[in-house]
């Protein structure tokens, strides 16, 4: 599991791990906690091309639904099938086994640092 302090963040409560030209994306523990028990995850198809800021998936809990936004432009290279089969991973391990998609990005927009995100969620 990556250190939270080494990740970048979005205002939509997603975390982004940059490794070379691939971004791994998940939702933060704060978002998972707010959503409650996640029961269903809808992710884009492998190979789909995505645009920054658009909705590429949904995360459903028993009481609400959260949208997954693409934090970067690019092509989906991998989706986490384990989380589709076991959506509870989003709650139990949001920064690890609960990751959602990997995107080979074309350009990297400016994202939030851990410190900035911590201010956003008031921690």
């Amino acid at each position, binding site marked *: 599991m990556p250190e939270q302090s080494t990740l970048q963040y979005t205002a939509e409560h997603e975390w982004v791990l940059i490794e070379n030209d691939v971004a791994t994306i998940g939702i933060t523990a704060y978002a998972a906690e707010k959503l409650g*028990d*996640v*029961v*269903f995850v809808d992710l884009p198809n492998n190979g789909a091309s995505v645009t920054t800021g658009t909705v590429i998936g949904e995360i*459903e*809990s*028993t*009481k*609400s*639904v959260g949208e997954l936004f693409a934090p970067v432009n690019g092509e989906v290279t991998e989706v986490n099938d384990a989380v589709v089969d076991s*959506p*509870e991973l989003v709650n139990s391990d949001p920064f690890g086994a609960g990751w959602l998609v990997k995107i080979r990005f074309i350009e990297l927009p400016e994202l939030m640092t851990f410190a900035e995100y911590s201010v956003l969620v008031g921690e």
Partner: protein
Amino acid sequence: MAGHVLAAKTTHDLSAFASRHIGTDADAQETMLGAIGYDSVDALVRAAVPASIHVDGFRSAADSVLPPAATEREAIAELRLLANRNTVNRSMIGLGYYDTITPAVIKRNVLENPSWYTAYTPYQPEISQGRLEALINFQTMIADLTGMTTANASMLDEGTAVVEGMLLARRSSKADSSVFIVDADTLPQTKALLKNRAEVVGIELVELPLAKNPVELPAAFGIFVQYPGASGRLWDPTAIIALAKSQGALTIVAADLLALTLVAAPGELGADVAVGTSQRFGVPMGLGGPHAGYMAVRAGLERQLPGRLVGVSQDAAGHPAYRLSLQVREQHIRRDKATSNICTAQVLLAVMASMYAVYHGPQGLTQIATTITRLTRVLARAATEAGHTVASGNYFDTLTLRTKTDAVSLVQRAHNAGYLFHLVDATHVQLSVDETTTLADTRIVAELLGEELADDTVPREIDAWIPSTMQRTTEFLTHPVFNTHRSETSMMRYLKHLADLDYALDRGMIPLGSCTMKLNAATEMEAVTWPEFGGLHPFAPAADIAGYLALIDQLQGWLADLTGYDSVSLQPNAGSQGELAGLLAIRGYHRGRGDDHRTVCLIPSSAHGTNAASAVLAGMRVVVVACDELGNVDLDDLRAKIAEHAENISALMITYPSTHGVYEHEVGTICKAVHDAGGQVYVDGANLNALLGFARFGDFGGDVSHLNLHKTFCIPHGGGGPGVGPVAAKAHLAPYLPGHPMAQHDFHAGAPVSAAPYGSPSILPISWAYVRMMGSDGLRDATAAAVLAANYVAVRLRDHYPILYSGDNGLIAHECVLDLRPLTAATGVTVDDVAKRLIDYGFHAPTMSFPVAGTLMVEPTESEDLAEIDRFIEAMIAIRLEADAVAQSLGDDNPLRNAPHTAQSVIEGEWTHPYTREQAVYPVRGIIRGKYWPAVRRIDQAYGDRNLVCSCPPPEAFE
């Protein structure tokens, strides 16, 4: 009339119905007023309702068109006179509505039983296991008969189910087309609904005679097949469904449930979605409703289902338990992105239909269907011998005849003889056989057709008119529940067993905010089961329904008068449909003026999610207006949004009093701002129970509203339907209110939103009786008593739970929002914990987390007496003390977190909790004698959504 002279005029005279409907008498009200600090109920309401909207400022009380209050006896006598003006002829009209025999054990123990009809939608599953089981029986019955994987817990009617099927197909199909293909042999009312609804959301309808099995289809996202056809024709759509599938289109099949006992199921034919009605499973026609429509889908489409879906989960002890599944599909969560705007279903009628199948079982249903089709064969033979031509060689229960002589006079002769034929055109009539048709009937019908029934032997083999290739070969209703209750004793006990699991108004208060769970009086319910109201086909001749038309006309007039509007259509079958009808009226009005660009619908962030979902289906774009910290519409944001969308403003939807239970002071200013921008004001009537008699939507700026007769006007909730959501409008919108191409009387000229012309007429006598027995004064007193009760609860509870919102003079309307967030922060006790703990105290929880997460909204209504209100208040205070104890010493193993407690949970095994068994189940001494025991412990919501099971589990699961 002597009765009127003797009739009581005050709410405290027990011969006045109002004194039976309103729970608090003068002494109680004085006590409550003392607690709040007002001298009179009138002074209290005047202080709460802004003076600028008081009805007195707009008209004198003498202008009311309501007759003076009748006593219960007088009202029944008047209803009897109206009923006598209806004529129940033998309907052979068909077209989706068939006479049926309601088993008396179901009529008495379900339809006439408050344990079933006064329950609410099963949002608190721990105290709703009975009707949830009945609904999962319904889903299993539908899934089995249609051969699909998953069925929902009912739709409003067949016509709207087809529309929802069309919308589902568009969401799910990958075909790049906006075309929906409709079989030419489709029910006329369904065609009318599709036409109205498709155009609004940009769907193009293409009608084709699919029974001719075309080898090519235009590009489309979906096709619709009526099975058997509206004309009665039975044909095999397998090839056409395969062709559609190869083009990426989904197929929706509307199937007759009784026919499906004999013919191949839609699922076996390759359909993606099956829809229809369960009316002929023991639910009276009632001039068109209410009855339960259905929808079922193949595997993979479950998440696209609109409406309620019951599933199996498990409780805290690991036992199977039922609850509503996948609720995030629904409009209260997803708002403008929901699968549909529908929320109310037809639970009571779905329960009746499912019990009809439970009682008859697969053999009984097959026998009923076989008798029907054999009698149809007898009629076909007689018609042919009389020189008519039967249009289709294969059929189930319906024949279209090309008549030898003039069809019009044939239909007239039949009517004179007490039989209703459907006149197709000058040379065609249509006849349907149903469960009530006898051999004696066929003899008379044969004579009408011009032929003595020489051969009245009923053919045994059905192969001659239902080809063996089309016959059903698969089993259905194999679950034990459909194969156990054959004797009436067994059936009666099963219904009693299920009813005993549930908490309805016959047990105690259901203080659900925004739901208005008030008395559904026995006198109001009485006429519902009279055959003169139940036995009429929705397309019966006008002469047969004179009493109904008079009742509808009167009720429409009264509702218009009470709300300050000019015209009312009773057609919408739920609040959501009323909203849609109202928004479509606004759309029609703008377009009529050439303002096609006016498509922006302003909706406050506090609105019911249904508002946004309805706006989308009315072809509008939702723009959210912010609310301030007091819960009121933020006027600055409203002005900014109006400025931003200036010329494109279509409407504002506003609920009054607000969803926060407050009379917004600025409502007049808000309406004026929208009018000044050329927009129309839609006032959501969900909270009318706090306004009736004191202010009228039409006076303070509303152009159109829907009312919920199942809230303010006493139609029982039925465990989640039926509902009636009339739409009321000012004169300029009246031409666009929903009418119907087959209506017997032209009340309205707009396009329909329901399958039947007047929606659900058989339950209209309930609201008619309520208004008739309350009169203007009684209705006003009821509003005042409801506002008094809510303010009393607020004052008594405010030291224990902060009251989140209040309006003028610190007062609230008819409901109060208790803020539990500080308690949760301090003790970890959640809204869920308090709601479930209330069950141990013998109460139904208030509304949870609406309009604000982490709150409870309490609506006591006018019907609860002071003793019951006080018991509820004391329970809430006791729970507050328990929560404090949690923080101080108990920790996570506490009576709130572990609530509700079943009998089993306190008896079996060793008691290891740090609180006593007595505290668990008898937290107050008063409930010892009459304790309500929940059937299950707290239900795991996530487990059920992650492991979706929506049909009856095997009996072993409960061992």
